[in-house]
């Protein structure tokens, strides 16, 4: 299952914004953990959401699984100039 998720994530990556970063809006977040549970890479997205910080994990493939699964619209993609320059 996880392998399949990873594969799918890498495939989806072709179609998603690779230069983007997932950003949480923590006033919407209830720490349910659906994002972390569905991350194919195993990133603890919920922890970033708790602190309201962008998911700046070098392993994040911005596959969008967490964004799509969050039942409360906490997560969104954002294209940030500084993301590109600071890596």
């Amino acid at each position, binding site marked *: 299952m996880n392998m399949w998720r990873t594969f799918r994530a890498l495939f989806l990556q072709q179609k998603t914004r690779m230069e983007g970063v997932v950003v*949480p*809006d*923590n*006033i*919407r*977040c*209830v*720490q*349910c*953990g*659906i994002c*972390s*549970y569905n991350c194919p890479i195993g990133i603890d997205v*919920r*922890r970033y959401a*708790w*602190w*309201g910080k962008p998911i700046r994990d070098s392993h994040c493939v911005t596959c969008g699984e967490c964004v799509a699964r969050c*039942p*409360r*619209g*906490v997560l*969104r993609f954002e294209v940030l100039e500084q993301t590109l320059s600071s890596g």
Partner: protein
Amino acid sequence: MQYVLVGSGVAAVAAAETIRRLDARGRIYIIGEEKDGYYSRPGLAYYLTGEIPERMLFPMRPEDFRRMDIHLVHDRVEGIDPQAQRVRMTRRGWLPYDRLLLAVGAEAVRPDLPGVELEGVVYLDNLDRTRALLRLARRAKEAVVIGGGITALELAEGLRARGLKVHYLLRGDRYWRRVLDEVESRIVEQRLQHMGIRIHYRTEIEEILGKKGRVVGVRTKDGRVLRCQMVGIAVGIAPRIALAREAGIATDRGILVNEYMETSVPHIYAAGDVAQVFDPRVGRHVLDSLWPLARRQGIAAGYNMAGKRVPYRRGTPLNVTRLAHITTSIMGMVGQREADPDAGIVRGDSEVWRALPDAILAQKSEDINSIRLMVGERHLLGAVLMGDQTLSRALYTLIDQRADIRPIREALLKPQAPIADILADFWETWQRQHRPTSPAQEVSQ
């Protein structure tokens, strides 16, 4: 300095984190009577539907607390002695405090119905009760759910997802009329029916029927009998104020606190669902039952307990939730003039939503997507957004920041106005003119 925080929900955890940031050496105790400690209570709904396993309900591991040198204690606080500044626990006895936080939450109201004590009567209230509910759901075939608001739907949808035939009983003639308008209620009801949930309007339980101590059905006030093995109840919640009241702390429906989260007794604070917080903008004490606001209150309490005088600013109440699989944001004042027979304050609720704004309505709906705005003279006062959430963050910011909407007011109020397009254009312009203030920054203050 010794800090004692009673309750292990988000308000207490947020307070503990905040205190630790400000006071590296003070001793911090979180005393919770649930053996599971801190978990995501709103996550229970997704545990019930099977979207997450139980282990995902825990946002923090025990080592996270250890790293912050926060002591988690599983015990029940039975009494407070404000004179001696100490609390009494069932197993461990007395524990002194310099600063005390009461963050004991609220509990599901048990209605006064014959048969309410039977096995099979369930509440989506805490992790233990949810586990029991899931065990019962494994062998049940039919369920009856009563109550308005979000939790009742979570129960109905969750039991349906577990394969049960679900009857949803409404006392009135539509769903959650205190917050939703008729268009929105109907959208939710249609989706529920589409999911296979049977709605019974103007139907109340007269008696829960039992056999050998277990639920076998309900008898309605109009004399019908619905066979079921479970009855899900979500008719409201009540702040757990007994502990405070017995200690002589001022209470109303909740524990009364000022903007600094201070109760009427020195060195004792309250936050979260149990706190009824003074809101200087409306001039009275208000109850909220929203998780992110409980966190903000905990943070504010933490600051004040650690000696920094920081007032709690609620901001615009917001809940984003799923109603019958439709993502819905409710923000600001969206008041309804009709009384709702189905619910008092329920979980995921704010009394502010029900304030009646002096506003004109602008509304547009199409299929499952609906947008309703409360348009004031200069500002947007509230909104309900169902389905498409593209504008949710923009709307929240415009309402919360009290954006001057006079340039678009007339256009918004025209019949059949393309509300979403007007708002999207306005948001583009407004964003360029204003540096965005992220609600995230406010939470972390």
